[in-house]
């Protein structure tokens, strides 16, 4: 930990953000959903730490609660994409007969820009936390598949795998004993990148208007709501954006630290 400051710093910030989100009900000043026309577009002050938005809602409290949604989306997408990606990647890498079909589908998915695919899926499915998670996971998974498949392909050529094959060890046992454990480290690194990228994508979906509805505040939809007022009340965009970017930055450097520590390569993208 001490030898790797990026893991410590990145991890520390992430933990802090998670704690803020968890204890939002105790840290909030004003109900994040209550509108008050008298307090519209107030600048930051001792009463409204981050100011108020166009409906007079308290931005500080909204940002606290927004963290809950954004972190949940990031985490859920990371778990879903790595899980699905691992499964499909193992199958494609080990069963060569399925590889061609599976990889053409992945190539097809990757030919459509991830942002556009996520926007389209989310908008057409209808905005809700679940649909946003599904939309982003579909856009993120192909890269995980490709990563895992590549690892499996190189592992199955290893001499120790061939030695096991020669001594009569069954295929399923070879996968469980010799191949699966070697995918965990790169998968963990990739999961952090997916986590980070999913949080950014969530914000983009909200910005376009295809994201989570504002009744469930997320960092993304708070920024999106500030859009109309950006020339006069820039702080409405600034505060949630700072929280979002700081968190994503922390996850990214945590991932880089993890990669250096585990000596893995990752496939980063947005």
């Amino acid at each position, binding site marked *: 930990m001490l030898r790797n400051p990026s893991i410590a710093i990145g991890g520390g910030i992430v933990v802090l953000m998670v704690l803020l989100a968890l204890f939002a009900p105790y840290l909030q000043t004003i109900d994040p959903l209550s509108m008050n026309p008298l307090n519209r577009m107030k600048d930051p002050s001792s009463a409204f730490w981050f100011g108020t938005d166009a409906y007079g809602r308290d931005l500080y409290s909204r940002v606290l609660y927004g963290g809950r949604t954004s972190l949940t989306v990031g985490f859920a997408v990371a778990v879903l994409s790595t899980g699905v990606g691992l499964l499909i990647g193992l199958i494609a890498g080990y069963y060569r007969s399925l590889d061609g079909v599976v990889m053409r589908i992945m190539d097809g998915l990757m030919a*459509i*820009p991830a*942002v556009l695919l996520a*926007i389209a899926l989310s908008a057409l499915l209808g905005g809700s936390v679940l649909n946003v998670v599904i939309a982003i996971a579909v856009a993120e998974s192909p890269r995980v598949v490709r990563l895992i498949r590549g690892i499996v392909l190189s592992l199955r050529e290893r001499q120790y795998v061939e030695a096991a094959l020669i001594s009569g060890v069954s295929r399923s046992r070879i996968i469980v004993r010799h191949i699966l454990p070697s995918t965990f480290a790169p998968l963990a690194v990739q999961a952090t990148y997916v986590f*980070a990228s999913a949080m950014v994508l969530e914000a983009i979906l909200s910005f376009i208007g295809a994201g989570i509805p504002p009744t469930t505040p997320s960092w993304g939809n708070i920024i999106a709501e500030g859009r109309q007022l950006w020339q006069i009340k820039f702080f409405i965009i600034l505060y949630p*954006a700072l929280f979002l970017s700081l968190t994503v*930055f922390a996850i990214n450097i945590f991932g880089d630290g993890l990669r250096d520590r585990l000596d893995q390569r990752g496939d980063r993208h947005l």
Partner: protein
Amino acid sequence: MVQSIANRLISTVPILFVVSVLIFSLLYLTPGDPAQMIAGAQATQDDVERIREALGLNDPALMRYFDWLWDVLHFDFGRSVFNGRSVTELIMQRMEPTFSLMALTTLFAIVIAVPLGVLAAWRANSVVDRIVLVLSIASFSIPVFVTGYVLAYYVAFKTGLLPVQGYAFLKEGVGEWLAHLVLPSVSLGLIYVALISRITRASMLEVLSEDYIRTARAKGLLGRRILFVHALRNAANPIVTVVGVGVALLLGGAVVIESVFNIPGIGRLTVDAILRRDYPIIQGVMLLFAMIYIVVNLIIDLLYTVFDPRIRY
């Protein structure tokens, strides 16, 4: 050579087929009746029926798919559900802003990122290297539209140095055109710069540890020649690969940044279409983007031969 390019083209057919199926099936994702959704709550039964007919929802899915594919193969993407205009025509009208934005961004990103990556690799683990690293992670971490607004607010709106929003067509003069594109390109390009500079650094670091670099040093060659003649050409292929893959990033980013800067390009067309569920436009644009991606990567494949004599087609 010609034969090989032909083979390569043929190998894209399965991918295009998958893309077409994916894009086509988007229509069936919407919960409930898409025609009803498009028409809205106040629509008459006739309106809904007209839209159903226009989208071909009355036909079986498979038949509808082949009809659509047949039209697409004839460059007919259908007509907008809302204003009845040809999708092909709508896209053509909005080509210039989007392609200007992308070309300028690519150019600016490569010119900045490659030297930055080489520098970071040459002085690996130095202060310069670390600054480049932190900046590149930062640009991965800030959503592209936030960068756009920050630049628009502090650089354009506060100072008035550049136009805050909008687009000037080339025929209005290169200066105007450029002035309107500077901020969108910079916001869009930051991630691209980060991506390219990091792969340049990684690729150069790998090459610099190769035996032939030691040979070059054993010949008494000096730094700059080793770096740019011996190392960079060997490091080139991973870099151009990322440039190619990054096109997807750029296309996706353009969709967002056009909304921030109010640029009347394909991205805006797409966003509007998605929010209104104008399926023929959505399908047309997505297919176009996928084809651009595939064609760019085909060209990249051919570029490999330029840098590496071991690869022949």
